[in-house]
């Protein structure tokens, strides 16, 4: 099956720093999403981005589908950005659609 690897696995930042999180996938996909799981376990959808670039405030994401990777940029990080970031890719198989989650990047932002 498709493999979804994220890097780095762990990241510690000082408040105000910028960072780039990477998601590599081993096969072509129909869709890709980025999620943030906060320290209480709630998963929040950040971006639906099968290709191209999107921005939402301090966050932006770029997916290059032909090269099988996506990047999530966090600028001017805040302590509330702490948590785990997942990318998830969707593949269709025999008419069914499902998302496969990546390995995750655990981010801690220090005040």
């Amino acid at each position, binding site marked *: 099956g498709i493999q979804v690897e994220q890097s780095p696995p762990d990241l510690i930042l000082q408040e105000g720093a910028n960072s780039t999180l990477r998601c590599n996938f081993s096969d072509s996909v129909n869709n890709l*999403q980025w*999620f943030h799981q906060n320290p209480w*376990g709630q998963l929040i*959808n950040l971006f639906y981005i099968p290709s191209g670039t999107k921005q939402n405030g301090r966050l932006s994401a770029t997916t290059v589908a032909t090269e099988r990777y996506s990047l999530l940029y966090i600028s001017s990080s805040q302590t509330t950005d702490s948590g785990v970031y*997942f990318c*998830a890719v969707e593949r269709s198989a025999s008419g*069914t*659609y499902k998302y496969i989650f990546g390995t995750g990047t655990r981010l801690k932002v220090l005040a």
Partner: protein
Amino acid sequence: SAVISQKPSRDICQRGTSLTIQCQVDSQVTMMFWYRQQPGQSLTLIATANQGSEATYESGFVIDKFPISRPNLTFSTLTVSNMSPEDSSIYLCSVEDGQTDTQYFGPGTRLTVL
């Protein structure tokens, strides 16, 4: 966006018992999904539940262990049967917005099996 609630939010259960987790959505959705997140791990898809048909299980998950019901377009249940400590995880339901293809998650059920 969809608003999803799950019950219970957490539970501590004894080995050999079963627990049924409920997932309620505030709008009608075609596809609902159940995931498991073991401690410190990523999310693993258990099954896809579509209304009016049997759930489709992923490799490594079977109906006898994780029976799923989907009686209507806003509700689903997942039962974790004959539990063992290895079943201790967070169980999450999610739905896909048919218009935007965006996936939304419930708050999860944190299960501890003793």
